[in-house]
C-alpha cells in the first residue's frame, strides 16, 4: 500500500531541493505549490478524523464534509502569507494559483494511485476539472482580497462570505461528480465555465 505521506515526500523533496537553485518569484511559487500539497494532506487527515467522529458513508463525506474542510485548510497558507508579509497584487495572485495547483496535483496523484487502472480519457477529464476547480476557487478568493485591499475595505463579513461562496462551489462540484452519467459531465464542465466567467472581472481588475 502506498501512503499519502510517502507520495507527498516523493514529490515535495525534489521541489524543495530546487528552491536552492531558484530565486524570488520562482522560489515563492515552489513554496506555495508544496504548501498546497501539504494542505491537501492535512485536509485528508481532518476529513478522516471527522468521518470517524460522525460515522458517515464515504459518499456523504465527499459531498458534505470535504468541501468545507478543504476550502478552510486551503485558506490557511494564504492567510499566513497575508499576515506575515504584504505581497504585491501580482505576487498574491501567483501564490494563490500555485497553492491551488499544488492542492489539485496532490489530490490527483492520490486518486490515481488509489483507484488502480482507469482510462486515459477519465484521467484527462478529472485532471483538468479538479485542477481548474481548485485553482479557480483560490484565485477568485485572492481576486476578492486584491479588490478589497485596493479600496481599503477588507471586511471580515465580506471575507467569510467569499469563503462560503468557494465552499458552495466546491460542494456543488463534488455533488455533481458523485454520481456517474450526465450529472458528472455537467460537474466536470462546471470549473471550466467558472474559469471563463471570472476571466472578464480578472482582466478588468489587472488593468
Amino acid at each position, binding site marked *: 500500500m502506498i501512503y499519502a505521506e510517502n507520495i507527498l515526500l516523493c514529490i515535495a523533496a525534489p521541489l524543495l531541493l530546487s528552491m536552492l537553485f531558484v530565486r524570488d518569484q520562482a522560489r515563492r511559487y515552489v513554496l506555495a505549490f508544496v504548501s498546497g500539497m501539504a494542505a491537501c494532506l492535512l485536509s485528508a487527515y481532518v476529513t478522516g478524523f471527522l468521518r470517524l467522529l460522525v460515522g458517515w458513508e464515504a459518499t456523504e463525506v465527499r459531498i458534505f464534509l470535504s468541501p468545507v474542510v478543504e476550502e478552510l485548510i486551503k485558506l490557511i497558507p494564504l492567510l499566513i502569507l497575508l499576515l506575515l508579509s504584504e505581497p504585491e497584487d501580482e505576487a498574491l495572485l501567483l501564490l494563490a494559483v500555485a497553492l491551488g495547483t499544488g492542492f489539485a496535483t496532490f489530490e490527483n496523484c492520490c486518486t490515481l494511485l488509489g483507484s488502480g487502472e482507469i482510462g486515459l480519457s477519465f484521467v484527462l477529464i478529472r485532471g483538468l476539472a479538479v485542477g481548474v476547480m481548485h485553482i479557480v476557487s483560490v484565485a477568485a478568493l485572492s481576486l476578492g482580497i486584491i479588490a478589497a485591499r485596493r479600496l481599503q475595505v477588507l471586511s471580515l463579513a*465580506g471575507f467569510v462570505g467569499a469563503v462560503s461562496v468557494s465552499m*458552495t462551489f466546491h460542494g456543488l462540484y463534488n455533488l455533481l461528480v458523485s454520481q456517474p452519467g450526465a450529472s458528472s459531465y455537467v460537474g466536470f464542465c462546471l470549473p471550466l465555465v467558472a474559469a471563463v466567467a471570472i476571466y472578464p472581472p480578472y482582466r478588468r481588475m489587472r488593468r
Partner: protein
Amino acid sequence: MELASYILNALAIAVYVILIVLCVRSLSFRRSMAPVFFTFALVSNLMSLLYWLAYDLLRPDARMPFAANEFGEIGTFLLLASTLNAVFRGRFAQARWEIVCTGLFAAASAAFWIAWSGEWLQDILVGLSFGYLLCVVVRSMKQAAVFSRWEWRLLGAAAGLLLLLQGLTFALPEPWKGRADFCAYALMFLVLAWGFRRLIPALLRRADPCAQLALALFCWSWAVSTMYMSADFCYLAASFFSVCCTTLALIALRREEAAP
C-alpha cells in the same frame, strides 16, 4: 407542487444568471467595493439554488445532514451586509433599541427553525449570519430615514406578534393551531406587501439611492424570513418575492453608483 417548485427554482436560476451578467457588465467596480460584494452575493445565491436543484434531482430520498447550500446562504447574507456597509461607508445613525429588538427577533426565529427541523448547528450558523444582515439592514434604514417613528413601532409590533403566533402554533391544539398558522402567514405577507408599497414609489420617484437599496434589502430579508417560516405555496410565493427584491436591489445599486 413539486413541479411548481422545480419550475420556480429554474426561473430563479435564470434570473440570477442574467443579474450577474448585468452586474459584471454595467457596474464599474472602481469607486466602491459595494458592486463587488453584491456580485459575490448573487453568485453565492445562485450556487445555493443550483446545489438545491442538483441535490433534489440526484438524491431525492436522501436527507441532507449538512449541505453546502447552507454555506451559500450564509455567504449571501454576509456579502449583502458587506454591500450595505460599503454603500454607507460604515456611517450609521444611532439605533440601539432597533438593533436589540432585531437581535431578539433573529434569535427567536433561529430557535423556531431549530424547533421545526432539529438541526442545531446549521440553524445557529445561519441564524447568526441572518441576524447580522438584519442588524445592518435596520441600521441602514435608520441612517437613510426610511421609516417614521410610528412606522418603526408598527414594524416592531408586527415582528413581535409574528413571533407570538409562531410560538402559539407549538402550544395550541387543532383547530387553533391552524388558525394561528394562518394568521402568521397573513401577517408575514402583509408586512412584505407594506415593504413593497414603500419600495416601489421610492424607486419610481428616484428617491435617495441609499434608501432604495436599504428598503430593497429589507424586503429581501423579510421575504427570506418568510421562506424559512413557510411551506408549500407560501414558500414558493416568498421565494418569488425574494427574486423580485434582488432585481430591485440591483436597480438601486446602479443608481447609487451613478450618483455624484
